[in-house]
Structures are given as C-alpha cells and as structure tokens.
C-alpha cells in the first residue's frame, strides 16, 4: 500500500516537472524550427542582399529577394500607429483613471475591453469597407488600400492595450503625490500631467512597447487594408508588411521562394524577441 502510494507520488512529481518545462520546450522548438528552415535561404541569397535589398520579386526571372521594403513598412507602420495611438490612448487612460466619475469611467473601460476582444479579421473587414474607400475619397487616390489605411487600423488595434496598461500604471501612483501637489496650489489637471504621469512613466513605456509588439505582429487586418504590393513604403503607396509578406505567398510558394518566406518569419521573430527583451528590462528596472 505504502509502496504504491510512494510510486504514484514519484511519478506525479515527474509528470508535473515535465509540464513545468513545457513552455521552455516550446520556445526551443519554435526557435529551432525557425532557425533550421529560415537560415538556408539567407545563406543562399546573402545576408546583406536579403536584409538590405530593395526589391522583392520572388516570381520574376531571375528572382530577387530583398526584404528591406517589408522591414521598413513594418517599422513605419508601427511608428505611425504609435504616434497616433499613444497620445490618444494615454489621454483616454488619464481621463478614465483620474478625471471621469465612476459611471463614465466604467463605460469607457467596458468599451476598451470590448475593443480588445474583437478579432483582427473583423477590424480588417471594417477597414476594407469603411477606411479604405474613405482614404481614397479624402485624399483623392486611385486606390485607398495603402500604408495610411493600415496605420489607422493598427492604431485602433493597439489602443486597448495602451489604455489598459497605462491606466493601471497611473492608478498605482501613491495618493500622497497627488495630495501634495494639490496642497501646493497646482490645479487638478497640472497635478495629473506634471506629477502623476511622470511618476507612472515606466508603466506607460511598458504600454507603448506592448503596442509596438502588437502592431508589428499583426497580420490579417493589415493584409486586408494595406494593398499587399511589395513597394518601398510611402504613406499613400500599397505596401506589404513583414507579417503579410509571409502570409500572402505561403500558399503557392516553392523552392527558394518558400525558404525565403521562412527567413522573413525568422527576421520577424528576431524583432519580437528584441521587443520582449526590452519589455523585460523595463519591468525588471521597475521592480528594483
């Protein structure tokens, strides 16, 4: 009796240990598979030609595999979304955390939660039907599916994470800071912007980094609104992001073209790892 009980205890111990290291295993697995399938093409094309080549013509004869257009598009798109989304989101977060009364802030918070739950294809659909024609009309373009439309959709998609994370950060600022500032004669608004926001700086930066991660990794919504042509980026040009470059040719690719797609995914993965690393550093610094 005692022996079987002991046996079960020991085997459960082993099982739980295996489960515990599952996440580590998955990360290694993903990295391994991406490295194995992503590096051969980079070797064949040459790393400078691959990363800094300005032309992507995978089906041309002879084909050229330069992904600089995709990298720049991803960077510009993300940058644009951050430029518009962060001030908007931060203002909203401050409003919800400090200025609005309970009822209003609950309404806004529920809205933000809902926005964050909407699937990305739904955003893509709305972008396709509303934003793309609107951009075409307003700027008098032949086609509205371009970087600008993508930036607008990305902005909407990063807003929820920017708002909820910075709101949490603003709320954790000690009440004494606020009281001291008010007692010194600052108005409520001055207190919020000159005392509370600087005190919540690291949380706000975290929210920005999260927004960068989300927008650089977004694929489906962007695919539906960005036009999907491998141009060097311009605000009103049809463009392809790193994510959409992988997705759009995957179904019919073969040979070196297919390998090159895996290399693009590897580049994207490296970008994400760097963003994660930055995020970790910020969180770590905050803890100390």
């Amino acid at each position, binding site marked *: 009796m005692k022996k079987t009980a002991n046996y*079960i*205890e020991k085997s459960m111990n082993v099982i*739980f*240990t295996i*489960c*515990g290291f*599952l*996440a580590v295993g*998955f*990360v290694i*697995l*993903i990295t391994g*598979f*991406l490295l194995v399938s992503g590096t051969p093409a980079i070797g064949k094309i040459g790393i400078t030609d691959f990363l800094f080549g300005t032309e992507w013509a995978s089906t041309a004869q002879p084909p050229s595999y330069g992904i600089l257009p995709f990298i720049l598009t991803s960077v510009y798109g993300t940058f644009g979304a951050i430029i518009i989304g962060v*001030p*908007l*989101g931060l*203002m*909203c977060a*401050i*409003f919800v955390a400090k*200025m609005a009364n309970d009822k209003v802030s609950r309404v*806004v918070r529920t*809205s*933000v*939660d*809902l*926005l964050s*739950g*909407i*699937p990305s*294809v*739904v955003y*893509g*659909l*709305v972008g*396709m*039907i509303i934003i793309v024609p609107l951009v075409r009309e307003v700027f008098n373009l032949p086609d509205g599916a371009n970087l600008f439309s993508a930036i607008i959709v990305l902005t*909407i998609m990063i*807003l929820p994470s920017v708002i909820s994370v910075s709101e949490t950060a603003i709320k954790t600022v000690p009440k004494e800071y606020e009281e001291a500032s008010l007692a010194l004669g600052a*108005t*409520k608004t*001055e207190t919020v*912007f000159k005392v509370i926001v600087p005190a919540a700086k690291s949380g706000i930066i975290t929210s920005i980094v999260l927004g960068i991660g989300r927008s*650089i*990794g*977004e*694929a*489906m919504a962007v*695919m*539906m609104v960005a036009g999907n042509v491998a141009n060097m980026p311009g605000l009103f040009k049809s463009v392809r992001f790193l*994510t959409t470059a992988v*997705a759009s040719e995957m*179904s019919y690719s073969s040979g070196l073209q297919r390998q090159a797609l895996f290399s693009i*995914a590897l580049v*994207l993965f490296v970008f*994400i790892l760097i963003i*994660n690393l930055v*995020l*970790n550093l910020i969180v770590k610094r905050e803890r100390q």
Partner: protein
Amino acid sequence: MQEKISIKRKIKSTVLNILMYLSAGIICLILLGVIGYILYRGLPHISIELLTSKPSHIRGTVGILPNILNTIYIILITLIIVLPLGVGSAIYLNEYAKNKKLIRIIELATETLSGIPSIIYGLVGMLIFVQFCSLGTSILAGSLTLVIMTLPTIMRTTQESLKTVPDGYREGSLALGSGKWYMIRTVVLPSAIDGIVTGCILSIGRIVGESAALLFTAGMANEVLGFVDAVTPGNAGSSLTVALYMYAKERGEFEIAFAIAAILLILTFVINMSAKWAASALKKKGAKQ
C-alpha cells in the same frame, strides 16, 4: 486668501482637459461605430438557412454550419489538450519548483510565448504539425498549434488562483499524513477551480478570434465534419474567422462576411462578460481569504 491662477495656466489646463474628453469620446465613438456598423450590415443576413447549411453550388445554398462546427471542434480539442498541460505546469511552478533560477527561466519562456505573434505560430505550426508530424492541413494540426499559443494563458490564470490558496490548507493536509499529490488533488486544485475556469474562458476568446495561426494549419475547407473526422489527421476545416477572411478578401462576398463578423462580435461580447464575471468571482474569493 484665494490666490488667482494665471491666465496662461488656466488656458493650458483647459486645453488639456478638452483633449482628454476628446480622446475618450473618440474611442467610444470608434467602438460604437465599429459595433454599430457590423451589426447593421451583418444582422439582416443571419438566417436559419445560413446557420444550418453548407456552401453548395448545386443546391445554391450559402451556409456557415461547417465553420461553426469547426470552430467548436478546434475549441474542444485545444482545451482538452492544453488544460492538463497548463494546469500541470502551473502546479509545478507553484507547488513543486524550488529553484528560483529555474522558475525565472520558465516564466521568461512563458512571457516569450505570449509575445509571439499568431502568424509565426501559424508558420511554425505548419512546419511542426502539418509537415514534420505529417498530420496534413487539418483541424487537429490547427488545434495543436493553438495549444502552444494558449498555454501561457491557462498557466497564468491557474497560477494566480493557486497563489490565493492559503498555505495553511497545504500544511494541514500534509500534517494529516497525505502525500503531496493527494494534497494537491483534494485540497489545492478544488480551491483553484475558478482560476482554471477564467483561463478557459480567456483561451476560448483567443481561439474564437484567431485567424492567422489557423490559415495554414487548419486549412480552408468548408465541409461538415463529425467530431471523429475532426480529430482524424488530414481533414481540413476553416474556422469562422478564416471563413470571414476568405469570403471578404478572396471572394468579395461581403454579406456573408458581415454576417460572420456580427456572430463573432456577439460571441466576443458573451465571452468578455463571462470572463469578467469569473474574474470578479476570483477576486472576491481572494479578498475573503
């Protein structure tokens, strides 16, 4: 004596205030616009026929029954696999692991997993499950891909809820002579059930909204499958989101696309509400102890 605030300061404050109200207003407007527009365009096209038939050129029907079923299958298969794994690893982290460094490594891996974009999951899922494990483009391969993706969610919520179980419970049980596994099974896990439920709801939300990870793993087929077919390798099937993408982007059939979008919105709303309800239940329990 009330000191007067200079006009410059007053203007500055007013402008900032206006900006704040404006931002909050814009965000609520975006939400109302998106939801209103989708429901307005989508609801009129939702019909019994749409929900209960499959697309067929011969009979002239357009339906999303296969996609609804596929989404349900993917949710079920993913949860069945990820639940024991995620709960197990949370238990390891909270109950077994002693080494601080190892815990840190596992947590780092979990954070990395939750930061990886879904398109990369789709690609790696295709490499691992579709090609390497030769499951073919199938619902099973798609679900396995989502297992990796949802693991961090289940882990985190379970762990949070395990932390609220007081140590006294554990010590009491151990002092009465129970083994560690017996203690976990009878004392710790039942008290952590609400965290596991929250994790499930959040995972379902993520699975329902997922598209990029499924596009190349679960495929684009629109056939009605039984559950046994769904777990057989090689049977592809598109989820609601993938179907939406195909109808909107590849075929330009926007009526169906909006109908699916409306259904997804309603599902999202329901899942959101249940997650909130579960989370508040969890919080209440945490506060009680």
